[in-house]
Each structure stands twice: as C-alpha cells, then as structure tokens.
C-alpha cells in the first residue's frame, strides 16, 4: 500500500494539480491572520472551513489523476479494487498534512492570537481540522469516484453540497422543513459550534456526544463510499 501511495503522490506532484488548491489555501490563511489579536477558536474554525473546501478540491483532483486504462492496471497490480480507493484516501491524507501543519502553526509563529494557547484549545483545533479534511475527502470522493462523479455537473454538485452543509444551520432556521434532508450533509455545525464561542468555554456537555455523532457519521459515510465505489467499478 505504501508503494501505491508513493506512486500517487509522485504522480500528483508531477501533475502540478496541487498548485491551485494549495495556493488558494495559503492565501486564505494569510488573509485570515492579516490582523493580530485574532480569537483562537474562531480563527481555527475558519481555517477548518478552508481545509474543508481545499481537501474536497484536492480529493477530486487526486481521483482524476489517472485515465481508465491506468486505473485498470493499478487495480490488477494492487489485486483488489478497494485497495485502490483506500490508497487514494491515504494519499490525500498525506498530501493534506503540510496544509494542516501550516493552518495550525502559521498563526502561532506569527504570534497572531489574542490570549494564550492551551493544550485543550490545540486539541480541539487539530481535531476540527482533521474532521473537516475528512468531510472534504468524503465530498470529493462522492463526486469523483462514484457514479455521482461521472455526471457532467460533479464539480458544481460538490460546491453545492459544501455550501448547503455550511449554511445548514441558517437554512434550518429559515425553514424547519430543511431539517428533513439536511441531516444527510456533513455535520459542519456540530463541529463549528464549539469554536464559535469565546476561547474560555470549552468542555460543553455536548462536546462528547457531538464527537460520537461526528465519528459515527464519518464511519458510516466512508463505508457507504466503499460500496458506491465498488458499484461504479463493476
């Protein structure tokens, strides 16, 4: 598997497809910390959203690296189709590591925060970045490696889903009927609500249950993705 990840990353770097999403991401972070005295959690919340979009984009480009025949060769070299999918996910995770590091350490190094960091704050922030990158992988995979991805409007649909998931809370307030279908989207608000308050409030009672909910959401959706991927590649 590690050699497949190696192959993917080498091929991704040589394709230069990482440049647009990565530069947009860097720009976003630079702008986010233009002014000093930024509140810690909500800034990290904002960079998590940036990760969400960027990783969706990166996932879609990673899945479009190969044409059919190259993909088939890789299926046979790997022996199983699932290995291809999981290898792609691992590759995306490896590719996203520098972005995570940048999002976390840039404000610390430039001393942009108001107040001082504590371990719990860092833990919450890192988890939120990780969770949002998984949301990104989820949406990116759905619209590039399943039957949903072969449609003409896959990019548009991906953007639509991201926008809907981010604005789910407001939509639900606008029309409660929205609740009936919004649960299917990545639970952005469940994560982000812990980062909206001031930096001192941390361990809300709901933190634990929300974490469990997000974890379950991720496990179930990734399992579904494997099924959808296999259905497409059959």
């Amino acid at each position, binding site marked *: 598997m590690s050699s497949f990840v190696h192959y993917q990353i080498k091929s991704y770097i040589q394709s230069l497809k990482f440049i647009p999403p990565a530069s947009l991401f860097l720009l976003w972070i630079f702008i986010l910390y233009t002014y000093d005295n930024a509140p810690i959690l909500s800034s990290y919340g904002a960079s998590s959203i940036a990760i969400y979009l960027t990783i969706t984009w990166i996932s879609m480009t990673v899945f479009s690296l190969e044409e059919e025949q190259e993909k*088939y060769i890789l299926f*046979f070299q790997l022996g199983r189709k699932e290995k291809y999918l999981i290898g792609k996910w691992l590759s995306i995770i490896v590719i996203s590591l520098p972005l995570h590091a940048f999002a976390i350490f840039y404000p610390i190094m430039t001393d942009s925060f108001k107040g001082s960091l504590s371990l719990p704050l860092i833990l919450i922030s890192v988890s939120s970045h990780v969770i949002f990158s998984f949301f990104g992988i989820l949406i990116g995979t759905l619209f590039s490696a399943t039957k949903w991805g072969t449609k003409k409007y896959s990019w548009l649909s991906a953007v639509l889903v991201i926008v809907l998931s981010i604005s789910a809370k407001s939509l639900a307030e606008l029309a409660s009927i929205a609740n009936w279908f919004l649960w299917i989207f990545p639970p952005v608000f469940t994560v982000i609500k812990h980062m909206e308050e001031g930096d001192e409030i941390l361990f809300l009672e709901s933190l634990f249950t929300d974490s469990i909910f997000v974890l379950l959401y991720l496990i179930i959706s990734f399992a579904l993705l494997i099924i959808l991927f296999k259905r497409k590649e059959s």
Partner: protein
Amino acid sequence: MDIFKARKVSKEIAGVKVLQDISLCVSQGETIAIKGTNGSGKSSLIKLIGGIYEPSYGNIERAEMNIGYVPEHFPENIRFSINDYLHLIAKISGKLEQKINKKIESYVDVFAIGEFLQTPLRKCSKGTKQKVGIIQALLKEPDLILLDEPLTGLDQTTQSKVIKLLQAFANNTTIILTTHEQVLISELAPRIIEVDKGKIISDSFVEIKEKLNIIKAKVPQNSILQELTFIDQKLIEENTVEVKVPFTESDKVLKILLEQGCSIIELKEMR
C-alpha cells in the same frame, strides 16, 4: 481446476448490452485467443474475466489469482520515466527491490528499450508504450495473463519476441488474449473463442499443426529410399521424390538424402 466460470452472464453499460448470454469455463493453464470483428465485445469479455466488469445478470466464479493485464491502449498521460514507472509498479504488486532490478533489466534488454529508460512515458512512441504495457503485466509473475490485442503497434521482430515470451509463460500460466492476428492464434492458442455482437458464437480447440518442410530431390535409382521409409514420401516423377518432414527433422533427413547421393531440387515450408 477451473479458474473462471460464467453462466448466462450479460453485461450492460449505460443501457448498452456489451455482453450477452456468456457461458464460459476457463481451466488453469489454458491458452485462449478471443477473436471477433471491431466492437464485437472482445475487450469487454477480457474485462469480465479479469474482474474489471462484474456481470449485470447471471453469475460467475473467479478463483483468487494474481492477474497481469495488458490494456488495449497503454495510458497516454503517464509522466514517469519508463524506469521509474516499472519500478513503482513492481513495488505496488509487492515485489522485492533486489528481485525487481534484475527482472526489469532483462525485459528492457529483450525489448530493446534501454535508450528510452529515462524518457517520460507520455513522450514515448506508441510501440514503446505497448512494450511497457506488456512488461508491467509480466513483471508480477501472474497466474493469469490477460492481453488485449498485445501485438498492435509492434514491429515484426518485437511481435515474434512477444510470442516467444508468451510461449515460455504458457507452460505454467493461463493466458487469455484478444487478437486480429492469425500468427498469435496459430503459434500459441489451441482454444479459440469467437465473439460477435457481445455473444460467444464459437468456442473450439484447434490442433496446432506441426510445421512441415517439403523437400524435393533427385534420386539416383528409381526407387523408394530405404532409409527413409519412416517418412512420408512419394515419387512425383521418374527419379524425383518428394518428402514431407517435420521442421525439426529436416537437417537429419537432408543429410541422409545427400549421403545417398541425391541432389536437392527444392526445400520449402509447407503451408
């Protein structure tokens, strides 16, 4: 042992029936050629056997096996050099570094692509890409080799090299290939499957005929050659005899003829 079995399998892609009512059984060690006109479903059948396609209807059984696949068209856009590509691919299939190097070297020699080793694949000629397509499939020492029109785009010498290589593999490997080339069929495959409009229309075994030489010679007396009674011979006119000998026996027979004082008039391959 059967490695693949299909019962009444159909495959639909985007509403198009690309394969229909396929019933097929492949045993370990067989060499099979699939032929048919363009668009008849050869590539689709190969994909079904290998597992790229699963049936829409009907059922199949596939043994767990290590499969090498040579696609119909080698991918156009690979940025790796041939050397990098082959090494990466071999590692993906789980081969050990030291073992790989030797094997890659030997295939590079056989196919004479040494001078292009550092060339990015996307810039290589069609034939070179095709060679790399074949090498990547053989490198993993597969139990089953699937080749989709392996000879297209290759020059005459390379074609015979591929045939030789496959003959060597055929001893302990199952080989299934699609082809329009008669040579491949006659040199390699005793079993021929013909497809048309997505259906198997014939599935038969042919005996590979042994190559024969025909030797015409003038003989000293008007007699049957005593020493060659074991060989198919006949007098075609006075003092002239025609013998049919297996390709591999020709030298021996020629020697005997000459020793008996015959003069050779003609030696040709029998068609």
